[in-house]
Structures are given as structure tokens and as C-alpha cells.
């Protein structure tokens, strides 16, 4: 299967198989008017299979969102068909407006103009807590 090379844009590589669609949704890539290729189950030397996303434009990307879903992914920045930078991701210490607190008793459920903030409290187990009410972040809470 051939996917065109991109002139300027991003190649998000080494995505764990199955996670590309989550990243696609979280970054709202369906709303872009440039070319976007979502490749699933591509061959990988390290992990046998992987997902890849190619974006044909240098849009602003929230790397924290990608790192939150798949910290093992790499983000390659392409200019004039050449990779000019490879960004390795790290689990973000804070998530700002990436997820919404789903505790109905949390102040974020009623107060207007409030950033949704989660802090990493356990790096090993990747546990985040709401900055306000300290509820644990569940993986299904992506809304932004």
C-alpha cells in the first residue's frame, strides 16, 4: 500500500496498534481540510505492528494529548519532504483542557471559564487526579 510522502506536516509514528483512531479523534483531525492518512497495523520491527498518522500541514498540535494516550509514539516534523525534528514524548505532568472531570460534585461541573486541570500523581501507574476535587481520571474522559 502506498501513501504519498508529505511536503510539510507531521508523521506520528510508533503508535501502539489500535491507538491511532483515539489520537485522531482527540486531535480532532477530522476537522482539518488538509490530507490526513491514518494507517493501522503497519509492520514494525520493534512491536510487529503499529499505527501511523500522517498530517499534511504544520498545524498546532497539542503534544500532551498524544503523550497522554501513547507516550511511546514519536512525532516527526517534516519540512520540504525532510524530517527536520523527531520529538520523543514524555508522560505529561499536567493535563490542561485535555480531559474533563466526570465527578458531578466537582466545581468544574458548574463554574464557568475554568480550565480542566489534571496532575500526574503516580508516574508508574499513570494516575492523574483532578486539580480541584482530586478525583481519578478515567481513560474514557477525553472531551477536548
Amino acid at each position, binding site marked *: 500500500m502506498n501513501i504519498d510522502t508529505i511536503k510539510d506536516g507531521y508523521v506520528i509514528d510508533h503508535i501502539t496498534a489500535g491507538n491511532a483512531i483515539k489520537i485522531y479523534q482527540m486531535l480532532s483531525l477530522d476537522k482539518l481540510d488538509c490530507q490526513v492518512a491514518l494507517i493501522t497495523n503497519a509492520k514494525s520491527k520493534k512491536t510487529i505492528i503499529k499505527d501511523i498518522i500522517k498530517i499534511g500541514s504544520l498545524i498546532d498540535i497539542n503534544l500532551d494529548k498524544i503523550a497522554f494516550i501513547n507516550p511511546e509514539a514519536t512525532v516527526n516534523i517534516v519540512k520540504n519532504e525532510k524530517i527536520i525534528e523527531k520529538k520523543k514524548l514524555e508522560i505529561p505532568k499536567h493535563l490542561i483542557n485535555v480531559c474533563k472531570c466526570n465527578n*458531578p*460534585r466537582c466545581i*468544574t461541573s458548574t*463554574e464557568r471559564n*475554568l480550565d480542566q486541570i489534571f496532575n500526574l500523581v503516580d508516574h508508574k501507574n499513570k494516575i492523574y*487526579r483532578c486539580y480541584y*476535587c482530586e478525583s*481519578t481520571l478515567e481513560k474514557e474522559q477525553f472531551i477536548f
Partner: protein
Amino acid sequence: MVKRKVRNLVDIRDLSIEEIDELIKVANDIINHKEKYSHKCDGKILATLFFEPSTRTRLSFESAMLRLGGKVLGFSEASSSSTAKGETLADTVCVVSGYADIIAMRHPKEGSPMVAIKKASVPIINAGDGGHNHPTQTLTDLLTIKREKNRLNNLTIGLCGDLKFGRTIHSLIAAMSRYDNIKFILISPNELKLPDYIIHEILEKNNVSYVETDNMLEYMNELDILYMTRVQKERFFNEEDYLRLKDYYILDKNKLIKAKKDLCIMHPLPRVNEISTDVDDDKRAKYFEQAYNGVYIRMALILKLLEVE
């Protein structure tokens, strides 16, 4: 508006053990020498912003400020504030900062003090945020334990009732876990068990011993403190669940037969049915003393946050 740096109390963990010891020392001194403190806050104003009804906490804050010679303003329910008109909490706090020297705030939403401290230019005291934290109740509890037991270490503490939504329980566990040789007996029905994050991040992280049980009598003979709580109707979305759980534990004289002679029975009040009135005459019942102590520890806290010598 330029915000000056002030000290707040949102969570009991905002205070070091040394600071808590100092507050207890000052509160005891106030109890013994009330006159000495009666003009310490002359000219100062406390705003009590109570977005949720409360009798004890609000009145004890107001009493504390009045006993220090200061004045009090505020509201006792959200419907009598600008919130009813749609004002955000952030705006309310920002405005009231200009009217008072210190704010005590109770709000039904968890984490609301974090919004308040970002906007306020005067000290904020969290007087309870939903089922989350209630640090001044904890200070009251610590003062009571210290006065009754003359120590804050080497204690077996039974916590009974609603451990899930009971904010006084969460704050008390966070505070007591910092002292040596504390053991908690966590007594609750399965539906109202202590949240996992408190078990993992406070108890297990600090190597604090704990046992979970739904049997109130199982460890009664081991307890130094028995802290009863009310199952709070306002924390339930479902009336049926509340009705099923509200009378799960009722402490009466018979249940105290095997208890230690110097057991200290505590309750943040108000109680409904969880402590029978026949326990009130037992010399081990300390919940009314606990309520009185609340005024004095809040006096000590106001002095500290206003930096009054």
C-alpha cells in the same frame, strides 16, 4: 487587581505538624485566658460565605471572630447571594476580598476553594467543600483528641459510618497519618467505604495500619477513639440508597460494654440517629466538648492567618 501573597487553609495538609501543634497550644491558651484575646482582632472583618447551609461551622466561625473583637458579615445560603443571579464563584470571592480581611467559605462543590484562592486577595479558609475536605473540623478534632488523650500518636482510631462522602473523615485521616503508631479501624457498609485514593495515597504511602470491616463491634475493645459520622442525605443522588444506609450503625450503651474505660467518642455533629441519646450521659461521650473546642481552634487559626501576634 494585584493579588498580595497570603496564607490560606484549603486542606489540612497545608499545615505542618509543627504548625498544628502551635495552633493547639494557642487554642488551649485561649481556653485558659479568654480575656487576653478579646481585642486581638479589633477592626478586622471576617466574611462567612456559606453557599450551603450550616449551623455549627458558620456560627463557630462567627463566634470565634466576635470573641477576638472583630466583626462578621456574610450569607448563609447560595440563594441569598449573587450566585442566584448567575455570578461565578471566582467573581463573588474577588468582590468580597475588598469587603473583608479574611474569608471562611463553605461550598457544595468539591475543589471550590482552589478557585477561591486564585482570586482572593485575603486569606481563604475552607469551611467544607462538598464531600472533599473540611480542615477546620479536623483541627477541632485534633484539639479534642489532644485535650482528651494528651497525645496525637499511639492511637487506635475507629472511623464509623459514611467513609466515602465524609469529608471530616478524609481530612482526619490525612492529618493523623502523619503521627507515629496510628491504626485506623475503618467501619462502613460496602457502599460507603473509604475511597481508594485515600487508601493508596495516604494510608499505604505513609505505612499506616488499617483494617476495613462492616462490623461495628468487632474491634470495639481495641479503640482509643471512636469517631462516628452521619450518613449525609445531601450527598446522595438516589433517595432509596440513602434510606437503606442511613441507620446502618447506631451506637448505644449496649454496644459500649466491651469498650475501653477511657474511650473517647467523637462526632462532628449534627447527628441524626447514629448515636443514641442514652450515650450522651456516658463520660466517654466527647462530641459536645468537641463542638465547643471548634470555636477556640478557629480563633487560633484566624490569628495565625491574619498574622496577629
